[in-house]
């Protein structure tokens, strides 16, 4: 596990788009499914353009954080499905821990700055 952690840490910190893409792949999805999921979980704040998503998927495949996991649909509706690799899962968890500690700090800061706003 420590070896995997070592290689996973090299990817941190992730950009917001990359974190959201990996988070959406906790279930296997095709590219368009990732776009819809990211938009939904970010309350419409993050809309991934197709150029941005294609580049991110290419990089994540190259870094072996995700892998191709078959296809859905048939004919012109055929889409490639992506899934996390063990390395990708580890990166996602480690980044989550980093964000969680920042989030604890953030609520502490909020209190220190006065109040329950």
């Amino acid at each position: 596990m420590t070896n995997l952690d070592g290689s996973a840490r090299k990817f941190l910190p992730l950009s917001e788009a990359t974190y959201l893409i990996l988070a959406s792949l906790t279930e296997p999805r095709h590219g368009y499914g990732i776009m819809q999921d990211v938009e939904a979980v970010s309350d419409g704040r993050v809309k991934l353009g197709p150029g941005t998503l294609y580049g991110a998927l290419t990089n994540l495949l190259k870094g072996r954080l995700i892998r191709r996991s078959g296809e859905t649909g048939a004919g012109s509706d055929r889409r490639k499905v992506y899934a996390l690799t063990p390395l990708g899962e580890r990166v996602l968890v480690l980044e989550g821990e980093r964000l969680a500690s920042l989030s604890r700090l953030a609520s502490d800061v909020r209190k220190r700055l006065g109040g329950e706003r």
Partner: protein
Amino acid sequence: MRGEKTTKRVFRMLMPWNDEKEGRWLAEQEWSGWHLKAVKCFGGYVFERAAPAEMAYRLDFGPSRFHDRSEYFGLFRDSGWEHVGTRGLWQYFRKAAVGGRAPEIYTDPQSRIAMYRRVIAITGATVAVMASQVGSTVSRGVSHPTMAGLPIVLVIQVLLMAVFGYGTVRLIMVISRLKRSQRKQA
């Protein structure tokens, strides 16, 4: 053809550091009632008369033929972008701009910078190849001063090197502008 023209052809050079400007120009054509019909490889656009519409045009420096591009085009199609044409590795896409809000194919500066870096990989490599060609032409000229045609070859090589060198510099400028705006956002 009678009366008013219903199609027109326009020749325009595409400068890779001006891809956004090119998109805006195509959007202006659409807005003034000229709908892009086709993109020809040697700099020609074919337009057709149509009702004026608000449309966003975007250019992407996409993957080459050696890649499986079905996934690439599929992502654009799924998110509502129509593929209008190809010029070299540049792909032209359009999508209706709803309520004056132009949709984007690159939604963060990092991925846009990565696109320009892919262009620079090609223009920069061309400069390097031309530089080595210029070197060998010059050394051939020194050892065979009477060889015919060498000055012309040299002029062409230097010219190509200058053109691609200029393009590379302009692209580097675009990237540094994007990086500055990224810092401002942060």
